[in-house]
């Protein structure tokens, strides 16, 4: 099958949607399908050979966080060329309402379109304002997928209709085979906790963790906090007490391999996210690596952790509860092992082999209904129709 996948967010910076697109593409390529991914990226960013650069991305504040998006006439032209030369059986557009390559692709494609909704917090005001403009092109989508129940609810409330829930996938094996690194492993005296993600983005929960640290240090003075991800360590340290700042070790952005090894090594992986997470792929990666997971009780996290069977939950945005849970886990190796084993088992349900099969079922269903995708000839046909209808109304 010839599959075109569109990512609205730049491949320069890793993110949930980009990783989803990359993994899905690689899985289908390994299955023998032809896949081309269209995504914004800077010219000097090294891209896998199946990715087509849609143009330079600009950081824009959208939907509560800064996203690197690409738009403008040049990008639109590139999108058109990609659609035309790809001769795709199906085009799979991610976040179709993101003001980037996705919306442009939605305009350009005239054929089977599958759309995946990742976000659980569409701004309804922005949506309503742009509605008349978006509506007709949203009608071109033959099949809608939501990555979570929350994302699905967003689709039903804001766009009407329904969506099939197909969760994010993880290459469980990649994480399960990660080797521990001794310098990240905890000891009884000096246990380790990991935090992953953009530390300066409040929604990722760094402020909650910072506020919890003094409480944790009071009980377990030797605890080490390993923080991996992009961001300026100083800006985070400034908001901490001196003791707390001293307990933190900043690893900077880490490779995929090191991420897996970090998750496999630490005693507890903490996800204090305060919102905006519609899925929480990182939790599944952590579970795959046999980490003991402690996460805020966001609906999405609660669901992924199977209500707390596969990982511990604490009250969202409550540093005291977070500290209590961290201390309890660090003092109870049996419980940690129990959660790690349950988590590893739970992760299998989200392996790409399972998830991609469901996505393929959607593709096949959609492709069956229509012939090959080609570029929308709308401007021409609209003129043709205009002339035709003009003549018709003249006749009657």
């Amino acid at each position, binding site marked *: 099958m010839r599959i075109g996948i569109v990512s609205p967010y730049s491949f320069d910076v890793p993110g949930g949607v980009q990783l989803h697109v990359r993994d899905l593409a690689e899985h289908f390529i390994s299955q023998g399908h032809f896949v081309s991914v269209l995504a914004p990226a800077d010219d000097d960013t090294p891209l896998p050979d199946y990715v087509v650069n849609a143009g330079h991305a600009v950081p824009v504040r959208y939907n509560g966080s800064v996203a690197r998006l690409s738009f403008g006439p040049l990008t639109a032209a590139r999108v058109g060329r990609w659609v035309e030369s790809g001769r795709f059986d199906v085009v799979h557009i991610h976040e179709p309402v993101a003001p980037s390559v996705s919306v442009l692709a939605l305009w350009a494609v005239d054929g089977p379109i599958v759309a995946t909704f990742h976000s659980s917090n569409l701004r309804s005001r922005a949506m309503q304002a742009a509605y008349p403009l978006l509506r007709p092109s949203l009608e071109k989508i033959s099949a*809608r997928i939501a990555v979570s129940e929350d994302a699905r609810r967003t689709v039903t409330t804001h766009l009407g209709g329904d969506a099939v829930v197909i*969760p994010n996938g993880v290459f469980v094996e990649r994480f399960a085979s990660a080797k521990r690194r001794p310098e990240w492993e905890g000891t009884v005296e000096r246990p380790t906790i990991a935090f992953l993600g953009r530390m300066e983005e409040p929604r990722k929960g760094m402020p909650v963790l910072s506020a919890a640290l003094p409480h944790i240090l009071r009980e377990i003075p030797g605890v080490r906090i390993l923080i991996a991800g992009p961001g300026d360590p100083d800006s985070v340290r400034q908001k901490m007490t001196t003791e707390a700042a001293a307990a933190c070790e900043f690893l900077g952005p880490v490779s995929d391999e090191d991420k897996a090894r970090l998750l496999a090594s630490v005693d507890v992986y903490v996800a204090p996210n305060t919102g905006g997470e519609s899925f929480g792929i990182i939790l599944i990666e952590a579970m795959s690596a046999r980490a003991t997971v402690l996460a805020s009780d966001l609906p999405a996290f609660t669901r992924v952790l199977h209500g707390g069977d596969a990982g511990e939950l604490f009250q969202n945005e409550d540093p005291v509860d977070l500290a209590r849970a961290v201390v309890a886990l660090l003092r109870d190796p049996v419980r940690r092992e129990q959660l790690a084993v349950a988590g590893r088992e739970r992760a299998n349900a989200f392996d790409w082999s399972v998830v991609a099969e469901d996505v393929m*079922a959607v593709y096949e*269903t959609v492709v069956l209904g*229509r012939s090959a995708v080609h570029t929308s000839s709308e401007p021409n046909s609209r003129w043709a*129709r205009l002339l035709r209808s003009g003549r018709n109304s003249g006749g009657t």
Partner: protein
Amino acid sequence: MDLSWIVSGIALLVLIAWYVSYGAARLDRLHSRVEGALSVLDAQLVRRAEATLELANCGALDAASALILASAASDSLEADTTDQTSREAIESDLTQALEVALGEDALAHLRADETVGAPVLQRVAAANQRVQLARRFLNDAVTDVHRVRRKPGVRLLRLAGHAELPQTFEIDDELPMLGRGD
């Protein structure tokens, strides 16, 4: 003065013509989406009935269950595809027949038989999943058509022409015991 009247008159006419052509193109696209989705659903329902027949004849089920399945499946295969209401009832019956026939014991028995039972069961599960997908995509398309056709401009100008108003396809297609993934 006169000229500006003429110009705005022409502009208005152009605007109306554009609205008409655009609305018609949009509806046309929606109707063909419904048609495509309907033909997919039709194909998937046939596939599901065929897989059910295969299950009935695989020899791993008791005779009574096999008979129930075979009868429901052949009803589905012989259904009058033009009569949606009766077809909905027939397909719901097939789902119920599968639900009744695939009790805990029968499922365990089928799954244990790796040469015949398990693959046939897998085919039924896959076929049913595709029915669910096809039905959801069809109903989404139908909802979109209804919404656009309710618009006053579309109604006033009769942009839908003589195209029949499509209906959502309502059946029970939940087979939780075949559950996949999560």
